[in-house]
């Protein structure tokens, strides 16, 4: 029998840590989604298939920019000392994922914009004729397009991984303290992005292709989740306790129902049937994948804050 009492009662800390509410999981989800979009788009630019996979290469950049800005705003909302936000850009701290994340975001924007410039919106072309010149300039240089693809993939990868590192660098939270978390967030981001294209692409071939890709990502994601849990379960007592938060603890119901079942398995089955032409493509499965990805971030952020070392309240 162990009784623990503490006289501490700090807001956001006691009785359990809850420093981050919806802003951070939303931001992490968006970061992953945009990372996935950049990688997918970058891949098709690099493999010179941007004309056939036009939704990915021409529509995603703009969507990425909008969504990413929402994510950044959400991140900003989380700050307690908002007026000091500029302090992020007065230093680069290698040891701080938050710091290099801030810088990655700064780099992500021009890279997505470069992609975006390949197919800017009509009204922009009308208003700023110089933009058209840039577009023409890019289209005349296939190597440049490939390079834009490469940097999109690289920065997308960094962004996706960073969203996981932000949490996994916290040795204090057993649930987060696994480098597999970065892979999980990257894969989940890719699956979300692929599902997104699957949902909005007009081009049948593109839709089929991305649906197939998404199926692979979902299977991979299941595998990575398994790895993460096995990793935790085979470490120390506190890590086992952390894993059990998801497996049979207070977060288990949400985790099994919304992440595993409705977020991965059910859409996977639907999409497998769709790509095998047993049923028609509908937005149902992709929406489930995207919501599943969002809930995954919420659960990981919340459960991770809940997980702690035993002898400290």
């Amino acid at each position: 029998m162990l009784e623990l009492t503490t006289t501490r009662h700090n807001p956001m800390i006691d009785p359990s840590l809850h420093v981050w509410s919806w802003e951070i999981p939303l931001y992490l989800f968006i970061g992953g989604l945009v990372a996935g979009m950049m990688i997918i788009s970058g891949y098709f630019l690099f493999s010179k298939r941007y004309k056939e996979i036009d939704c990915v290469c021409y529509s995603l950049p703009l969507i990425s920019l909008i969504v990413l800005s929402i994510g950044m705003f959400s991140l900003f909302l989380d700050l307690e000392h908002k007026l000091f936000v500029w302090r992020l850009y007065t230093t680069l701290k290698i040891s701080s994922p938050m710091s290099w994340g801030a810088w990655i975001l700064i780099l992500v924007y021009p890279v997505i914009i470069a992609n975006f410039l390949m197919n800017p919106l009509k009204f922009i072309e009308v208003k700023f004729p110089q933009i058209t010149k840039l577009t023409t300039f890019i289209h005349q240089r296939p190597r440049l397009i490939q390079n834009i693809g490469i940097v999109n993939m690289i920065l997308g990868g960094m962004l996706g991984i960073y969203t996981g590192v932000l949490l996994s660098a916290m040795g204090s939270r057993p649930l987060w303290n696994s480098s597999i978390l970065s892979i999980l967030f990257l894969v989940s981001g890719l699956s979300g992005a692929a599902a997104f294209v699957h949902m909005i692409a007009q081009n049948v071939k593109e839709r089929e292709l991305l649906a197939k890709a998404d199926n692979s990502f979902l299977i991979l994601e299941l595998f990575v989740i398994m790895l993460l849990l096995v990793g935790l379960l085979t470490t120390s007592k506190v890590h086992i306790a952390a894993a059990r938060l998801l497996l049979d603890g207070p977060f288990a119901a949400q985790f099994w129902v919304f992440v595993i079942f409705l977020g991965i398995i059910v859409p996977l089955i639907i999409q497998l049937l769709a790509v095998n032409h047993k049923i028609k493509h509908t937005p149902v499965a992709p929406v489930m994948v995207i919501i599943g990805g969002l809930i995954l971030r919420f659960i990981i952020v919340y459960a991770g804050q809940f997980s702690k070392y035993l002898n400290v309240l």
Partner: protein
Amino acid sequence: MNAISRRKFLKLTGYTIGAAAAASSLTPVIKGAKKINKEKVKGIQTIPTYCDICFWKCSAIAYLKDGELWKIEGHPNDPLSKGRLCPRGTGGIGAHFDPDRLRSPLIRTRERGEEKWKEVTWDEALSYIAKKMNKIKEQYGAESVASFSHGIGGNFLKHTLKAYGAINFGAPSFAQCRGPRDVGFELTVGDSIGSPERTDIENSKCLVLIGSHLGENMHNSQAQEFAKAIENDATIIVVDPRFSTAASKAKYYLPIKPGTDIALLLAWMNVIVSEKLYNIDYVTKYGFGFEQFAAEISSYTPEWAYPETGIDPDLIRKTARTMAMYKPATLVHPGRHTTWYGDDTQRSRAIALLNALLGSWGSKGGLFFPVSYSLPPYPYPAYPTSTKEKLDNPGKKYPFASEEITTGIREATITGKPYPIKSWIVYSTNLIFALPNIDETIKAIQNLDLLVVVDTIGSEIAGWADVVLPESVYLERHDDFNMSPFKQPFFSIRQPVVDPPGDQKPNWWIAKKLAEKLGLGNYFPWNDVEEYLDYRLKAGGLSLAKLKKEGVFVGEKKPIYIEEGVVPEFGTPSGKIEFYSPQLLQAGFDPVPKFTKVEEPPTGYFRLLYGRIPVHSFSRTQTNRILMDMYGENEVWVNQDIADKWGIKNDQYIKLKNQDGVISNKVKLKTTERIRPDCVYMIHGFGHTSKMLKGAYGKGASDSELITRYKTDPLMGGTGMNVNFVTFETEV
């Protein structure tokens, strides 16, 4: 307190000072109630004073930063605090900043207890009181005004009332607290334990605590010495139904069944006497009636005590031998709040006897002979004499009561016999929480023509008052000197550090003004309390200016132990330590303590025990925001197995219902392995019902409310309060 809110608060305060100044222009301004921080001094200022959060009266140094109260620390020269205050003292500045403080005099506008008031000027309030008091004097005689007070702050008011002709003065500190202990020792060694206690904890090699929870009870010097004893590797023996903090420091913990301490004490003495382990020289030299005592206790073997106490006979023997091994540096602590079961004087007598057997009374590491300063009193005119007797103890019903019995005054107020009591003047003691059985207190109040409460906060008793007078807190006022008897003679000064935030006045001012209203101005020949203090100091050959600067004067060390040459004197009829007490026999009591069984809780009920927490004093600190931040509501401790059986969980809210059907406010459960299954425990002072105490209202439950039963000690009238049983109401 929050730096921001403090700033805000001070702004507010500035506002009220303005209002107060306007109000008091109606009252002739008396010199000495002057503002002290009129000009804010930049930087750090330090002013010595002594604390008032409890009665220990530690000397302290208050720090002002840019003219605003910042913090308070112990006075390094003070023998009591030795430079370190307890958490309540450290948090004492919260008393000044307390937003729930009384701010101006109040007169009741509706029924008693409804807490409906009109704010009045001091002049109106005091005139009102004086008029009523004069009428009472005319109709019933001055003796019909009784007074209750706690702490040194009541001195001046008592002076006024004595000048008026009052003779009935009570303090819950006797019959609701340390009375049985002091009487038990008076009957045995002819002297009381006193306050601060004469316990030489730091030098004791074996410390025995019986229900005394040092460490949770933060009487500063005792807590400091307790830590010192731990450091010195003293053997600590703790007897308590609850695994207290002190128990966690003990070598031997005796999980005694509540109410059986006398059985244990008798068994201990049986072992020590039968094994000839007692201090033979000491007992031979100072003892009286030892043979009869030895014969009387010969049957109380540890085996006899076992079924009563639940303590293993081997453990009783082992602990008794340990005590004897370290004699005379074994201290069986007499405790302080000892009104438990109504047989408390005899229990305290047993403790005194055990100390005597070991030769601890007067020895280093035992109970020392305290020394103190004395200053000549101020030469006041003689008080009027009365033909009537005090009515708290009519016919010496409680033959050994050595102080007034509060509950006796209450009883007389209810019955009107032997003569009616028509007014209570209550200073700084929350009688609703302090006296057992609230209904009786309220019944008594209904018979009054005048209830005046002088306090800093709107306590429950203030809620029942006709007139409430707001007193400035200790940081804002002068009081009499503290000359507590202790290990070294010393005395200290209380002086204002900051201005009161509203129209509060110091008690000396209130007492003097009231005396003037009563036409007794000649009893206050001084204009200002500093004149009074100066007079007494000068009479002792000392200087006020110097004391104001230094805060405390410490005299030369004097012998305090027999080892140092003190020749003990015993104020008993025999002039010796009375192991066998003829005067008790004569009065019809057991000349040697006997054990009698206490009533057991009925099935499904648990004995209600209560105690202290380091960060609160009685029921008077629950609006101090600093201390409330430390501990903001009390919990009820319930044994884990019992909780499991009831299906109730830690941190869950429940209600307690006592044997008379009284249901408490909701209170948080603390399920724990730190308490016996047959009792529950809570911190006293919570569950406030006065709406004036915004920061405390409805937080936790009040043990006082559940103490509807009490068992009166036939020797001295103390009210044993551990005789109430509660059960759980799980629906809240």
